[in-house]
């Protein structure tokens, strides 16, 4: 099929599935089709050079709306940036364009990435029809044409916060999409809608131009129909960027490629697959537990060694995450004051009358005694409820009296979580010096070499995609438990992919797609995608 034909099909699906709200803004159709036509021409004439040989050449890629683009607004799903267009492209945008990709549009998301169902968006929530898995492969227009009604029993959560990106891929509105994953925001929606979601190791893909939620956790990830396309997209993005101070340096990357070189023999020899005991929680839905068991059986049948491992700090990871991420968020989102850009409440938004042209350390707080706080009106008017909840939480955990009990403790837990993973992986973490013995949290003995594993396989989420009607009834904090399996890899900065596997049953009784998560050692991104591809083939 020509690139133009594929682009036309995506554009048609964007129109057909518009009511599901996958996109906040889409690129102009004639512009997209013109680029696709040009791509076809350069491919056939052979004069295109590098871009035409790129697997992304002429392909439509959707970008989550917290990734900066100069040609479309970047709203982060928030009213405060509702009409903001960035003056610069994110590095990932630039790299995709350089690889010949066409930006399809900007996908819907939970405001600033804070949410698990892509419902907390200023531009309306995302939804997936219960039948979208089967419809996705169809090229005909779907039956649902009305805006999603949350009480509609046929509507499911698309997951969050990159729900728009996941849905855009599952409904063939784009070839692939970029999302961001802070505590599971790529893997969770991938699991719910049944596509491949890949979160690379922290620092491999540049964050320059990616609007920060929690910098130390934020990772640009890929949503794709399968591991092969995910690998193509990742390959185009995986490079050092001097503009991102957390981007892995060229020197570290040399070490990673040495590690990557051992990957093929490792797969050929038969993989050692770890099953973390602590992930078999009581809240795990039976459908997910069955799918997990089946996946492990198939891997074992294919000649891979499956063995139980222990990650004792897992139960602390979720609480640590919900201390650290809001703390960083409260700091990162302090910039939205309506002064330089973005939305601003009408009227004066200042707390003080007596403030003179103060300089350095001039009295910073804007309390004039009338309870009127500087910028409070703008921030109150344009941040949504979940963002406010996390900002207040973060401001509290960073406050002088709470810092030691929350933020500092959570950082300690984070190190223990990372040490847990290092203790079970056969390959040493290339970021830590080899000789250092792993720090253990409890009395569990360090696994000897035979007990060590190449990757871990566990569920992405405790349940399949919930019904929207149920989601709306949840208390906000209940939604946080969706991240229980994805947060540990985020805290440790490890590569992880969610691979769709079939649930049981057929037709009306189908359990739909369920996401299985593959987690690898830091820098073992290639192996994680290899294992994902192996699992895709085990039907």
């Amino acid at each position, binding site marked *: 099929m020509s690139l133009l034909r594929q682009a036309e099909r995506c554009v048609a699906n964007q129109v057909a599935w518009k009511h599901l709200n996958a996109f906040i803004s889409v690129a102009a159709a004639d512009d997209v089709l013109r680029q696709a036509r040009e791509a076809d021409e350069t491919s056939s004439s052979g004069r295109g050079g590098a871009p035409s040989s790129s697997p992304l050449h002429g392909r439509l890629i959707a970008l989550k709306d917290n990734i*900066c683009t100069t040609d479309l607004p*970047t709203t982060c799903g928030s009213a405060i940036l*509702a*009409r*903001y*267009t*960035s*003056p*610069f492209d*994110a590095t990932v945008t630039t790299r995709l364009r350089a690889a010949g990709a066409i930006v399809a549009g900007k996908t819907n998301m939970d405001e600033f990435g804070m949410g698990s169902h892509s419902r907390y968006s200023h531009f309306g929530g995302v939804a997936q029809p219960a039948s979208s898995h089967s419809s996705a492969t169809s090229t005909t227009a779907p039956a649902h044409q009305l805006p999603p009604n949350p009480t509609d029993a046929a509507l499911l959560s698309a997951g969050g916060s990159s729900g728009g990106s996941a849905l855009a891929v599952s409904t063939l509105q784009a070839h692939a999409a970029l999302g961001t994953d802070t505590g599971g925001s790529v893997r969770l929606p991938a699991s719910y809608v049944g596509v491949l979601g890949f979160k690379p190791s922290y620092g491999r893909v540049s*964050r*320059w*131009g990616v*609007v*920060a939620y*929690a*910098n*130390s956790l934020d990772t640009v990830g890929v949503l794709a129909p399968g591991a092969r396309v995910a690998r193509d997209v990742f390959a185009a993005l995986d490079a050092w960027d001097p*503009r*991102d*101070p*957390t981007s892995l340096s060229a020197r570290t990357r040399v070490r990673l490629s040495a590690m990557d070189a051992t990957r093929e023999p490792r797969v050929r020899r038969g993989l050692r697959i770890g099953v973390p005991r602590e992930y078999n929680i009581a809240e795990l839905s039976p459908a997910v537990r069955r799918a997990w068991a089946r996946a492990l059986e198939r891997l074992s049948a294919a000649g891979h060694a499956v063995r139980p491992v222990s990650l004792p700090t897992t139960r602390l990871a979720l609480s640590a995450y919900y201390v650290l991420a809001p*703390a*960083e968020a409260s*700091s990162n*989102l*302090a*910039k939205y*004051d309506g*002064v*330089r*850009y*973005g*939305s*601003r409440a*009408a*009227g*004066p938004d*200042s707390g*003080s*009358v007596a403030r*003179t*042209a*103060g*300089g*350095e*350390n*001039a*009295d*910073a*707080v*804007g309390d004039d005694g009338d309870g009127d*706080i*500087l*910028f409070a009106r703008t921030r109150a008017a344009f941040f949504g409820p979940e963002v406010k909840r996390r900002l207040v939480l973060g*401001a509290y955990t*960073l*406050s*002088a009296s709470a*810092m030691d009990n929350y933020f500092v403790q959570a950082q300690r837990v984070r190190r223990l979580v990372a040490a847990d993973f290092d203790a079970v992986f056969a390959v040493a973490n290339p970021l830590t010096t080899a000789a250092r013995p792993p720090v253990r949290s409890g009395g569990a003995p360090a696994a000897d070499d035979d007990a060590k594993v190449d990757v871990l396989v566990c569920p992405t989420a405790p349940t399949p995609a919930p019904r929207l009607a149920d989601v709306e009834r949840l208390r906000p904090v209940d939604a946080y438990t969706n991240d229980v399996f994805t947060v540990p890899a985020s805290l440790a900065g490890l590569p992880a992919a969610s691979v769709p596997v079939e649930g049981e049953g057929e037709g009306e009784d189908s359990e739909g797609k369920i996401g299985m998560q593959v987690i690898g050692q830091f820098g073992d991104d290639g192996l994680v995608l290899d294992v994902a591809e192996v699992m895709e083939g085990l039907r």
Partner: protein
Amino acid sequence: MLSASSAVRALRASSAPASLRPLVCAQCLGLVRAALEPRPPVASRSRRQLAFCARAGSQAAPGGSAAGAAAGAGVPFRKRRKDEARARKAAAKAGGEGRGRAERAEAGGSGGWELTVGIEIHAELNAARKLFSEAAGSNYNVRCGSGAGGLDAPNTRVAEFDLALPGAQPTFQKGALVPAIRAALALGCEVQRRSGWDRKHYFYQDQPNGYQITQYYEPFAKNGHITLYPHDGLPASDGASLTVGIKQVQLEQDTAKTLLRPGVAGGDGGQPGTMTTTTTTTTTTTTTTAHLLDFNRVSHPLVEIITLPQLHSPRAAAACVRKIQGLLAGVDALAAGMELGGLRADVNVSVRRRRNGRDAEADEGAAGAAQSYGGVAGLGTRTEIKNLSSFKAVEDAVALERDRQVAVLEAGGRVESETRGYALGARETRKLRGKEGEVDYRYMPDPDLGPLLIGRELVERLGEGLPLLPDQVVARLVEGGVSVKDAVTLAGLEGGDRVEFYWEVVEGLEETLSGEERERVKPRRLAANWVLHELGGHLAAAPFPSPLSPYPISPSALSSLLVLLARRVITGPTAKHILASLVAGDARDPTCIVEEEGLALKPMSDEDYAALASEMVRENEGMVEQVRKEKEKGRGGERGKVGWFVGQMVRRGEEGMVEPGRAEAAVRKVLGLDG
């Protein structure tokens, strides 16, 4: 690299039709310029508004003085200003007297109070770029600028991160380390191998990220000290010298500049050029004030220098700030001095009662539990006075705050821990916020920035290349025979340029003169006198504007002139005339001038000496009589009298022309002492 023009493009792009309103648009820039040009450069109110305040009898009148409040409606502005100035003068005088009393209290004696001061100084580093972007930093090259930020068009030195655009990240600019490490070394600090970056959170429109990146938990330099001497302005009551510990030096970002533009009507925030608006309520009406923001200065690298609370007088506090400024300028670390806003100081002030003359203790009963800051225990409750922008302001604010605290304590009250402000000329410090209003900065390690690692080698290299510190310069001058007073002056002139000039003159002199001549004329003292006073006189009369050098003549011209003087080819007055003509633009070498103009002095003949000696003898018959008597005693007592005659001859003859040896021979001959 991001140039200023692309930053402006970036700004324009960000204010494209999609955003709610253009916040940093060309129109705003125009308004900022308009605000700068015809008006006095903000900071205070415009004249029109002053007149308005006067009519309204508002308490917001400048200075808030009693005279200001008393001035009724209809008093002409000019007269009102005069009255105010007079009132301020009177107040200053009263304050001065008060200070005298307190100064006495300070001098000791039971019942007196001891003052303790610690200082935090923010100094803009002499760095080419901002701390976390490649945008150019503050520009002080144009010395007539309106303060920090220089004269560039507003908002032209800005990169994405400086404006906190969504998705922008910091990139640490290593260049900032050079002046920072120099500053730390000049302050005797240990530069840390590893330090970190922390975010200090507070909301203010001059702080685009909502936090300042600083080094709260791990500063890059610690444990330094400076020593203050009387020549630094240390008062005698503080002893012959005072060593003040430097607790730490940290790198951090500067803020943007807020310009108040009064009288903007409306306040819907949608006005072009209105970035943030505040409503100012006066007694009669409501006006809205626009804050215009210039981000040129934002994120320029600063060092914050924190001293230990080891200062005990207002003058020592001012001397400390002056000394630190001199040290930073001396090692080329400082972008601009206090007068240009390149350096600002916050002071922490507390008092405690002296006991038994020596040991001071916090006044437990009145002041509550004794406090401890920076490892110094037993202090009274302190207050912080923020943002002092001159040495005088430091001295006055400390004195006024000490007096206020003493008055509070003596009246049985207690000093509250609070933040206060002080405006130059005010009669007291003003409370800004109390403890309950204290900001919780919610310090958090910056998750984007890794640790700052500084190699030993870099520190050593910078240490080796460090110019002499001002104290070392003074010591070297004094060694060469220059008075301490002249040495301090010389070292401080033209930011160290004058002393450079001086050394070049000395070098020329010492190379040319023989050992004997050097012994006789003391070239270093001679050169100091001419470089400081003679050349200085010409500079004072007419500043010499040149892009290359601040001096109208070259050091080599001056040294060859002084060689002629030292060798007595010309007299002192002749040398001064030649200097004047050199300054006026005579391009000839001094030797040429002397030859061509026939200015050389002919040496005195034996006859000239004899005539001069006879003249002296004739005029001083009493002395001749005494010489005769001493001679008769035969104990050699006449020698001293002969010396007196030689002295008279040296004084009477042309300057520098009478050689003492030949003069003595001539006198002895006339007096008949030979043989």
